């Protein structure tokens, strides 16, 4: 059999291919984005970037009704957005199988919160599978499709950053040939008016019981027991299984491939075979609570509910228990305190930098959003003052406006990227317009979804495959709503930005300011010859250093600025802030 080393995300994509999935609609979000990025390489699967996760799941539901196995992939907070259709999809069930992949981010490497998505499985009363390596990730997509169709339920497949972004060996199989089912015309099943939904709620409760019973009775082959020492028995799942295997090689294990519903009968049987029973899991005590509520004699672990587990964290949890655990020498651990850091920063030539420079200069409160531009919070720009969730910038700015009787609307702006605007920001803007808001909304239209790896979006003009696609013109869109004050600015023109922001925030009307430069990564054609510092003219005033560009460096001995020409993209922002004509373009 062919073997390949694949990331968890690439393996999930492979699993979709092999299990005959025909449609994938997703919205990007770390650490889930590469699943759909990989899906696009399979010609047999129709794939698309949707405008948000709710839309993506609804597309998958429609496709299931049309008879095609479907999948949608999102990060954990994406499931909050998609939770509305999810909760009722549980009632309707499916026609062709539906798999909802959700990737959690323990340790918040790239997220605004650390929520544990397993709660959604219980909330929606639907099954959730949890793979522990790439091979399982691939295989579990297939299982998810089978379970989905067998019980008529959407199935959640949960990943975490450590699975999505780790690589391990995968057995490569071939694609299952499935013929498309017929369109599912069934009013009592699909039209969730109260009279129908009441009946479907019975179905939901029965389905959950059936799945649990089948899990307990090994009809679903989803739990595996590894009996070793009788001293301790550990119930675990997902990536935590790997840490347990390494930290406690002698423990007896019950590995759960489905984490909701739980095979409580099986866990009870297992508990009888060991002296002490534990659950090892990451984030919330989800399995632990269920098992304790069921009445089993379980030893709760005194563990932090934050961050990732690891081999050493697991072995520390058990070091007080008389059991042969591994020890980890870390004689050399406290060295890096004073090391110069390499903090994330907006790229050299980033089209967001100029407008943040202007916001900072005008000392405006910036109601922020999520994207590369969130990095505007860092010094020296320090020009993002709130970030909650995607789309919130515009509605929060409206709240700031209304909550202060218009006072703070004169001293604040909303800042939002194009992808985020089209995700959920647009609803907020309609709300501000309808409710006679007077805030100023800056839309940073770099025509790409930068933060998550440069996926195209409706403002790009390209489809997921890079072929030409219809392009939303955000200016026309805002004007079409009826908003009077819509201005387009060049974010590298500091004067223009300052003047426009001053004028628009002063107005007691809603204003939209759109920046018009593309992301430096998405469109390399905008890169021009670099700038350099004319040493004789440089007074060492540091005005250019304050724009926070990584290509502008400071020579502390000579007390002069200089530019790293290999990094400079020639954007032209720094010469504008230099009062001494000390910055010039190479070759001019």
């Amino acid at each position, binding site marked *: 059999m062919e*073997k*390949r*080393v694949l990331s968890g995300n690439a393996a999930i994509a492979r699993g979709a291919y092999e299990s005959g999935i025909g449609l994938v609609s997703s919205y990007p979000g*770390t*650490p889930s984005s590469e699943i759909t990025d990989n899906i696009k390489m399979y010609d047999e699967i129709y794939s698309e970037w949707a405008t948000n996760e709710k839309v993506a799941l609804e597309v998958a539901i429609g496709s299931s009704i049309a008879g095609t196995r479907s999948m949608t992939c999102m990060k954990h907070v994406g499931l909050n957005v998609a939770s509305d259709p999810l909760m009722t999809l549980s009632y309707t069930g499916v026609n062709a199988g539906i798999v909802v992949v959700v990737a959690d981010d323990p340790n918040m*490497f*790239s997220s605004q919160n650390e929520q544990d998505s397993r709660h959604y499985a219980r909330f929606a009363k639907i099954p959730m599978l949890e793979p522990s*390596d790439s091979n399982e990730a691939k295989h579990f997509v297939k299982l998810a499709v089978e379970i989905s169709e067998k019980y008529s339920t959407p199935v959640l497949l949960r990943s975490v*950053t*450590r699975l999505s*972004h*780790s*690589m*391990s*060996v995968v057995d490569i199989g071939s694609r299952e040939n499935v013929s498309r089912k017929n369109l599912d015309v069934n009013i009592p099943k699909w039209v969730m008016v109260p009279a129908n939904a009441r009946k479907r709620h019975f179905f939901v409760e029965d389905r959950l019981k059936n799945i649990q019973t089948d899990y307990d009775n090994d009809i679903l082959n989803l739990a595996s027991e590894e009996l070793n020492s009788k001293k301790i028995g550990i119930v675990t799942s997902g*990536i935590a299984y*790997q*840490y347990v*295997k*390494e930290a406690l090689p002698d423990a007896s294990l019950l590995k759960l491939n489905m984490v909701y519903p739980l095979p409580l009968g099986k866990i009870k049987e297992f508990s009888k075979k060991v002296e002490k029973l534990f659950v090892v899991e990451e984030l919330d005590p989800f399995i632990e609570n269920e098992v304790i509520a069921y009445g089993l004699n379980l030893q709760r672990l005194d563990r932090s509910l934050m961050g990732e587990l*690891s*081999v*050493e964290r697991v072995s520390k949890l058990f070091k007080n228990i008389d059991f042969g655990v*591994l020890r*980890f*020498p*870390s*004689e*050399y*651990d406290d*060295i*890096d305190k*004073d*090391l*110069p*850091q*390499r*903090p*994330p*920063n*907006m*790229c050299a030539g980033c089209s967001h930098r100029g407008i943040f420079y202007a916001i900072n200069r005008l000392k405006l409160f910036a109601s922020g959003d999520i994207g*590369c531009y969130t*990095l505007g919070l860092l010094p020296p720009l320090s020009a993002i003052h709130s970030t909650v969730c995607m789309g919130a910038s515009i509605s929060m700015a409206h709240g700031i406006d209304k909550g202060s009787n218009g006072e703070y609307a004169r001293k604040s702006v909303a800042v939002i990227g194009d992808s985020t605007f089209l995700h959920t920001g647009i609803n907020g803007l309609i709300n501000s317009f309808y409710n006679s808001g007077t805030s100023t909304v800056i839309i940073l239209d770099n025509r790409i979804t*930068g*933060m*998550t*790896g*440069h996926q195209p979006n409706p403002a790009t003009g390209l489809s997921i495959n890079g072929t030409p696609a219809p392009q939303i013109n955000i200016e026309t869109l805002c004007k079409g709503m009826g908003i009077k004050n819509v201005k387009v600015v060049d974010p590298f023109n500091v004067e223009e930005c300052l003047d426009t922001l001053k004028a628009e925030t002063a107005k007691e009307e809603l204003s939209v300011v759109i920046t018009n430069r593309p992301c430096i*990564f998405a469109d390399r054609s905008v890169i021009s010859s670099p700038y350099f510092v004319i040493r004789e003219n440089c007074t060492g005033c540091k005005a250019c*250093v304050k724009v926070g560009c*990584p290509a502008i*460096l*400071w*020579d*502390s001995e000579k007390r002069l600025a200089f530019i*790293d020409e290999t990094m400079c993209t020639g954007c032209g922002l720094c010469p504008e802030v230099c009062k001494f004509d000390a910055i010039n373009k190479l070759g001019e």
Partner: protein
Amino acid sequence: MKTDILMVGVGGQGTVLASDILCDVALSAGYDVKKSEIHGMAQRGGSVISHVRIGKKVFSPVIPVGSADILVSFEKMEFLRYFEYINNETILLLNEGKIYPPGAAGGEEKYPDSLIEEKITIFKKYYLLNAFDIADKVFNRKVTSTVMLGKLASVLEIKPDIWKDVISEKVPPKTKGKNIEAFDAGYNT
């Protein structure tokens, strides 16, 4: 055999591709392999780290504290951040080429040259090479990570031919020849 290799560097240096290549090499040589890395934000220039674990059977994709057998530093100071992973048997492969962190460049912090000199002596063995210079000689900076892979190959027990096959498959076809040259140059220094 169990070999835990920590590859560290700066975003944009090609450590991710290099560790991908190492994984395929290990698989071709008949081992189980896992790798883990954190990449989220698209920005360049941050510290990056890849854990690669090779053995008969690998469980955790992350190298436990104190367990790295080899630390490959694609930049001169980056290895200083990961001392919790080393033990008194760990080998260091160090690119002496520097990439200034924004702090050092911005004048607030100095590049830690003396700390580097002091700390490399902790390693049981260390190999120093200026992979930037070697890469420049062969082709350009883009093959730096292949130079480092060449050096790594010289301390691992996997045949160079396997490495070269995988490299040829993984790098852009146009740069295949240059990458093989870079690999040999690293291997032979």
